[in-house]
């Protein structure tokens, strides 16, 4: 079963129930532990092995607007996203073990790191 982790976005606008519902039907994955140099192309090549990708949104440092180690991958079909969790999560991309998790859905603004220095944490 491609189950979500225990992480829940604190900034999610809506109730916990709503968040769970969206996670349960989402086609979007959060992908973490990327190198700062990992490109959209690399992500597309690896995740594309699970199905047609609708879009990739690179996570950016809030201040420098450069990649800061995470991204969102949205598939057209949930089943493809499930397969990404089954078969990509925990394997390597650009020599780093990547982590995938369900995301409630990309909203403009969520691509920016929320850490104090602009990156992730």
């Amino acid at each position, binding site marked *: 079963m491609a189950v979500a982790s225990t992480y829940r976005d604190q900034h999610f606008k809506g109730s916990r129930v709503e968040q769970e519902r969206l996670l349960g039907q989402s086609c979007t994955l959060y992908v973490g532990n990327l190198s700062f140099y990992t*490109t959209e192309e*690399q992500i597309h090549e690896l995740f594309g092995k699970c199905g047609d990708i609708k879009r990739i949104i690179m996570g950016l440092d809030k201040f420098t607007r450069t990649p800061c180690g995470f991204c969102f991958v949205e598939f057209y079909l949930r089943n493809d996203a499930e397969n990404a969790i089954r*078969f990509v999560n925990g394997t390597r991309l650009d020599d780093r073990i990547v982590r995938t998790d369900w995301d409630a859905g990309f909203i403009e603004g969520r691509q920016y790191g929320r850490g104090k220095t602009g990156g992730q944490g």
Partner: protein
Amino acid sequence: MSRRKRDDGYEHGYRKRRRVVSEQAEIEDRLESLIIRVGDKTSSSLESNLEGLASVLEADMNTYKSKILRILSECPIQMPEKCTIYSTLVGLLNAKNYNFGGEFVEQMVRNLKEALREGQWESARLIVRFISDMVNCHIVSASSLLQLYDSFIDAAMEQGVPQVRRDWYMYALLTALPWVGRELFEKKENDLERIMAAMEGYLRRRNTAHVAALRVWNCDTPHPQEEYLECIWAQVRKLRTDEWQERHIYRPYLAFDSILSEALQHNLPVILPPPHTASTQYPLPWVVFRMFDYTDCPEAGPLLPGTHSVERYLIEEHLHQIVTRHHNERKELATQLLAFPQRNKIPLEYMIVEVLFSELFNMPSPRYLEISYGCTLIELCKLQPSTMPQVLAQATELLYERIDTMNATCFDRFVSWFSYHLSNFQFRWSWDDWQNCLSLEKDHPKAKFVSEVFGKCLRLSYYKRVNEMVPECYSPLLPPKPEPYFKYQTEGGNGLPGATQVQALTELLRKKPTPEEVLELIQQLPNPLKDDDGDMEPSHNPLAIEVFVQTLLHLGSKSFTHTFAGLAKYHSVFKTICENEEAQICMLRQVYELWQNHPQFLGVVVDKMLKTQIVECCAVANWIFSRDMAPEFTRSYIWEILHLTIRKMNKHVVRLEKEVADARAKLRAAPSDSESSDDDPNREAGEKRRRTVSNKDTPKDGEEQPTEEMVERMEERLEAAQSDQKNLFLIVFQRFIMILSEHVVRCDTDGKDFNTFWYQWTVGRLQQVFMAHHEQVEKYSQTLETLLFTHDLDSNILDTFRQFQALRS
């Protein structure tokens, strides 16, 4: 918590009933659990477990019979590796309770009939095997089993039905014989011989034209690529020469022989195979994948069972079943594979690797996602770091050695797997060992394999990394730096036609103009196709297209997202200047020119253009086969693009087909004005259909009822899409035929051998189209035969078509 106590007897009785019901459910669950877990690792012996469980079930028989019947009839099918455990259990129950035995037999027969009716072929086959094993346990009489076998043989001899149907009935028998062959040999030798003779006759007369399409390698050295039915037949024949002594299957019933032989047997009722209908789908044939023999495995270790030993078949089947059960959980799958029950008696890692590769290379397509096999192999390496990586490396070497005869489809999968695998292990490989490929021509499979692997590794890493991972001598095979080629910025580039407008457009685009403003600038460009007379209006302006496409895409070349943004914003400009196929082909040429050194980017852009309907599928197909693209023809990325194009078309048609079917069902289910009966069967069926076809992957349809008019419009759209699809296939196949025939003729004229690497690749790519899309191509098989694949065609080309047809005949 205090509650006002109600003193009516109803409440009390209700609570009591509820307690009883929930107790009952608890017991049922416990029984189910006991039955499912029997034979799993426990402290006591299997025999005492079986005896104990048989007693428990017998004691609970009156209350829980239907549940017990259901679970016992499902378990041997869900867990086929425990077939003999369940047959023993039922045998013990039958010995205690003849009636139960009879009801169980009836249940199995019901299940078999249903499975045959519903086309659940694998379940049906496992039921036949289980029923056969029930003869070993004295539940079913051998003579009635033979009657079942006879009716299956009759089904195999039936005229006028597809061979794939007849094959299945043979296969079901052949794969049951290892279980019951010995028993039949001892008690019914003559009948067994008769059946063997019938099967021999069948196999001799069979058509094996499909084999060529399904083989991974097109030659039989070092290992014959045997058709599946011929292989099991050889294995059963060998078993016969061993007097049906089979030593691999664990048979718990042997320990209970005295009890079981006292039991009364039941006769199977007559089971008639359901007749063939046009809509019945049978399993496709396959070729047995062999890459190892005993000489490949360590000398000191256990022996790899021979190709024609029944043991080989049984172990492989079991390994495939483990894959089936756990294919979605790679860690569990790796664990279960390595925990194989008889792992000490076989070279387990070799058999696992062979089974996984056989699935990865399965023709026409793998059962599961390619990546699932890749990451399972990685898990296996993690769990057995001292043996697995070496076996995998050995397998890779073997596959590389034999790549000269590997079909194009499997070649692609091998490239994809190997580069993916390397990307998880820092791209470390003994590249020095493969230096021989450097002296081969570029189109030689070995050289091509290495260059394509480099290309894929590049996609998963970056240019510097790929250059660093190989010895310098490999540089001729390395891909170029993946950058856009913007000819206007090269030396002398500002002298090219359109260069000034490129400059102007670039500056304009930086100011974020509207599409109209961009169009205005573009349309000022002169049209080189226009002749001075000005009579004929050219279909497009190639200069305008060149300037617009290259400038826009160059500006967006930083990333996919940048490019997509440009395509979206100026979508209307594309639609205006690339209205027809000629214009679209021209545009594709421009995209190619810009991205020729970055095939991945090229593919992604074409994909997006198809998606946003800037370009039509047929334009992409014609562009791929155009003269301009001839030098790139043997590069894998070309075929990636063709296949994504065909898949898009197929998906579109399938989606429309479903929409029409759903709408028609809704229409049928709608209550009419005059009546609204609740027990209208159509309505119920319609509602049920609606529920079962609703799928979270389609957009939620509004609750509004489609009208007849709407459905008719949908059907028109579907017809148009199917016509487009047929057209696309016709174009693709026709271009293949043309290009191959031209080559053969040219070689004839020049007195050269036509069987060049180019020719082999191209025939392989033609085969790939048939295989990758066989379900959809099937619809147009008749048209293809009439219009394109006619008798006068070169036999090599025609053979490809015939092999495809043979898949389902």
